[in-house]
């Protein structure tokens, strides 16, 4: 049974592997067998890069560092200690993985272009070091007497088979990844790190895992590649050409797809090799083509051929695209029949009279250089309270919000969650202990469906699949978005996206829900809808803190109102009392409001 499902799930890679072996066995020509080996090698390199560059979305421009390390470590072991490459192979892989760990730990704290720039330097450093250490032009010690022991075959087909096997294993592994929860972690990290942190994902760790695995595979491939090349130079192993090619084959075929790199390799490598053969006197022809390919791909098919083919929508091409992408497409989810009527989270209990302090802010201050955004702000948030924090624009609301949710560190003061000091806790850690937030400018995971977005809210914290599914549907019903479950998030209207964020925050049954300007941009009926949803959650026992500037609306719905202006707390109490204090009126409302109400 397990074997049957294994064969079914991995039909594509297994079929392609069988075909590959069949074709390779017929290739007696040196050039063709070498081409097959190179295609398989670059496909493997691309697949390993795809993990960090495609799935995790971090543009690594230094992949060559790990390929080269793998090759050179095994080579050095062989040259200096006579250790056969098969034994050097695990050592090399481990070294590459450790190197990725060493550079990944600090570098993955950077994002976007800073990360890309930093990764650029690593292979350059290694290239210079290895040249300096005398590996200018290294020859693998020849052992023609035992080709199998020393991985030295004259017949390139053996290399092709090894590379091909690694590629197939990578492909199967990637398919397995796509079916796992980790895939969603990676997608969340790739699409929006802030939102990923807010749902409890340790983004740095996720990126690090992808980085280390991708490096290990690259190192593994590097060992065999060096053996095949026989003459190894720092430029062929660490050169920018290697990193670029990893990028090109993945980009062309399909970034973030299991078979994307393979498709890209099948297209680009034969062309590059043909050019090298044709214009062997003129170096650079292949790189020139890669440059053109990069530009064409980025402008026309930025997600690669597989996405582009899917878009074409012709029935057969779609199937082909689906075949290469693996058996996992986006599943269409169906709401369970029973949950339809249940709009409240179960266990609605009356609010107890004696409520403990859930979150305590003590003299929180934040300065940016000379500007004091928040000055000695203190607040006790009790369990089951519904608090509104209001203030004019520029009052320090966003700063306060970021401080409470861990997105910024205060310059002074304390923050205690259930008595525990949580200053310096990264947002994901706060999210994991029950604090969830929404964003002022909503951050949905645009390319995922509404269902998947909400599911990501609970992916950390709800281990059981069935329980997670139930929680997602409950949440979707609570915000009345259940009928849109299969729509992609970026097809939703603005108020719906806001509700989606609320649903995502609610899935993990947070003890503390913080909403950042949830009313902005909503028309009155949408505001009422949101308020109803929040009231229901409150009845069910949640503690809600709402930050906004629409003071009149907030005053009508919350039980306690806190007013800040110019970084200072100027009012804290029942709404109708607070809105009457002179300071608040002067700072915020103006005397006209008071008159208008009477």
């Amino acid at each position: 049974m397990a074997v049957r499902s294994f064969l079914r799930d991995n039909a594509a890679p297994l079929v392609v592997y069988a075909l590959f072996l069949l074709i390779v066995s017929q290739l007696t020509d040196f050039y063709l067998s070498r081409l097959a080996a190179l295609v398989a090698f670059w496909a493997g390199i691309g697949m390993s890069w795809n993990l960090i560059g495609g799935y995790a979305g971090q543009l690594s421009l230094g992949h060559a560092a790990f390929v080269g390390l793998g090759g050179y470590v095994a080579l050095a072991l062989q040259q200096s200690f006579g250790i056969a490459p098969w034994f050097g192979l695990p050592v090399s892989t481990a070294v590459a993985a450790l190197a990725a760990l060493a550079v990944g730990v600090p570098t993955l704290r950077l994002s976007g272009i800073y990360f890309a720039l930093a990764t650029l330097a690593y292979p350059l450093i290694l290239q210079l070091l290895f040249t300096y250490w005398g590996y200018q032009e290294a020859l693998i010690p020849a052992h023609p007497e035992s080709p199998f022991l020393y991985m030295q075959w004259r017949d390139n087909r053996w290399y092709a088979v090894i590379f091909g096997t690694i590629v197939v294993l990578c492909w199967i592994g990637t398919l397995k990844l796509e079916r796992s929860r980790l895939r969603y972690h990676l997608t969340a990290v790739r699409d929006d790190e802030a939102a990923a942190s807010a749902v409890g994902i340790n983004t740095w760790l996720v990126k690090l895992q992808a980085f280390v695995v991708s490096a290990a595979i690259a190192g593994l491939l590097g060992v065999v590649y060096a053996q095949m090349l026989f003459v190894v130079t720092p430029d062929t192993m660490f050169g920018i050409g290697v990193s670029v090619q990893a990028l090109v084959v993945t980009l062309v075929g399909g970034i973030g797809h299991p078979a994307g790199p393979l498709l890209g390799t099948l297209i680009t490598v034969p062309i590059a090799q043909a050019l090298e053969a044709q214009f062997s006197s003129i170096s650079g022809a292949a790189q020139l083509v890669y440059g053109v390919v990069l530009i064409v791909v980025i402008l026309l098919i930025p997600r690669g051929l597989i996405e582009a083919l899917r878009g074409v929508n012709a029935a057969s091409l779609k199937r082909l695209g689906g075949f290469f992408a693996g058996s996992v497409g986006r599943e269409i989810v169906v709401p369970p029949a029973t949950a339809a009527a249940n709009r409240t989270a179960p266990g609605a209990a009356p609010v107890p009279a004696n409520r403990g302090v859930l979150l305590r802010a003590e003299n929180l201050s934040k300065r940016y250089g000379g500007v004091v955004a928040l000055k000695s702000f203190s607040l006790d948030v009790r369990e089951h309270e519904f608090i509104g924090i209001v203030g004019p624009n520029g009052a320090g609301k966003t700063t306060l919000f970021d401080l409470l949710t861990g997105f910024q560190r205060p310059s002074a003061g304390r923050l205690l969650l259930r008595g525990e000091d949580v200053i310096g806790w990264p947002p994901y850690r706060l999210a994991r202990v029950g604090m969830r937030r929404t964003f002022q400018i909503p951050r949905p995971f645009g390319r995922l469906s509404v269902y998947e977005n909400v599911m990501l809210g609970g992916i950390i914290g709800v281990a059981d699949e069935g329980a997670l599914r139930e929680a997602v549907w409950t949440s979707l019903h609570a915000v009345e978005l259940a009928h849109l479950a299969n729509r992609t998030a970026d097809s939703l209207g603005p108020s719906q996206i806001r509700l989606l964020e609320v649903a995502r925050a609610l899935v993990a049954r947070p003890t503390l829900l913080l909403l950042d300007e949830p009313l902005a941009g909503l028309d009155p009926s949408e505001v009422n809808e949101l308020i109803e949803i929040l009231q229901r959650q409150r009845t069910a026992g949640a503690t809600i803190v709402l930050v906004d500037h629409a003071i009149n609306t907030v005053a009508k719905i919350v039980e306690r109102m806190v007013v800040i202006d110019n970084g200072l707390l100027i009012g804290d109490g029942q709404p109708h009392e607070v809105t009457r204090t002179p300071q608040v009126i002067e700072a915020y409302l103006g005397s006209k409001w008071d008159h208008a109400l009477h």
Partner: protein
Amino acid sequence: MSLTAIFQAIAGGLLLGGVYALLGAGLTLIFGVMRVINFAQAEFMMLGMFAAYFLSTALNLDPLLLALPVGIGIGLIGLGIARGLLERVPRGDHNAQLILTLGVSLILQNLALVALGPTPRVVVRSYTNAYWSPVGLFINHARLYACIASLFIMGALYLFLTRTWTGRAMRATADDPLSAGGVGINVRRMHVIAFMIGSGLAGLAGTLMVTFIAAAPLIGNDFIVIIFLAIVLGGLGSVAGATFGAFVVGLVQSLSGLLLPLQLQNVTLFVAFVAILLVRPQGLFGFRQRV
């Protein structure tokens, strides 16, 4: 190691720094206004070097005289690339922009390689091997002239950015593109002008350098990390910072030559580059806190 050797290294580093400043200022200007990392910056320098080489050989003109025309010419190429390619990338997709300029860099490098071959070409003028010897130091004339010319150009750039309407509009765009658009600045035009100036400065720098550094298609690879380091040190987007960073990098490169063997000189720079990114990515004068 004598004191003279140290002073010599300092002098050499400062002279180089002047030219690096042109390259860095261009790159950081492009980043500040467009938020694009122009991977092809060093290739524009390479194009300037070759243009200067061919023109000065054909017309028997001093490269220093050709600096401005070649700079403008390279700037026009940059204009074409900005309008034709960069503006087609969806705004805000930084990875895509980076990859695009990487592609441009590869094309320029290898087009030159295919068309011109790998042999380096240097322009030898009367001052290429002449030296000025104050206080026991040897100051190469070619490097000195290049540095002085660079400082003039940097001065002109400063005046442009602070005294002209376009310059101020560019700085406004760099500071806040949305507001700049809101007050009537044509942001797209600013992008294109910034890229034109940035690439033009690189071409200009190449013209100044060809009298003491040989033009070769792949020469850009030696410079790209140097320029990146300079602008990251000074804070991405800050022209003043890039200038400062350029001099620091020149000094570090030169002084490390005293202590380290030739092959390892650049290792210092690359390690410094990574270190700055990891420790203080906003640089010394960084005004972008975004990491």
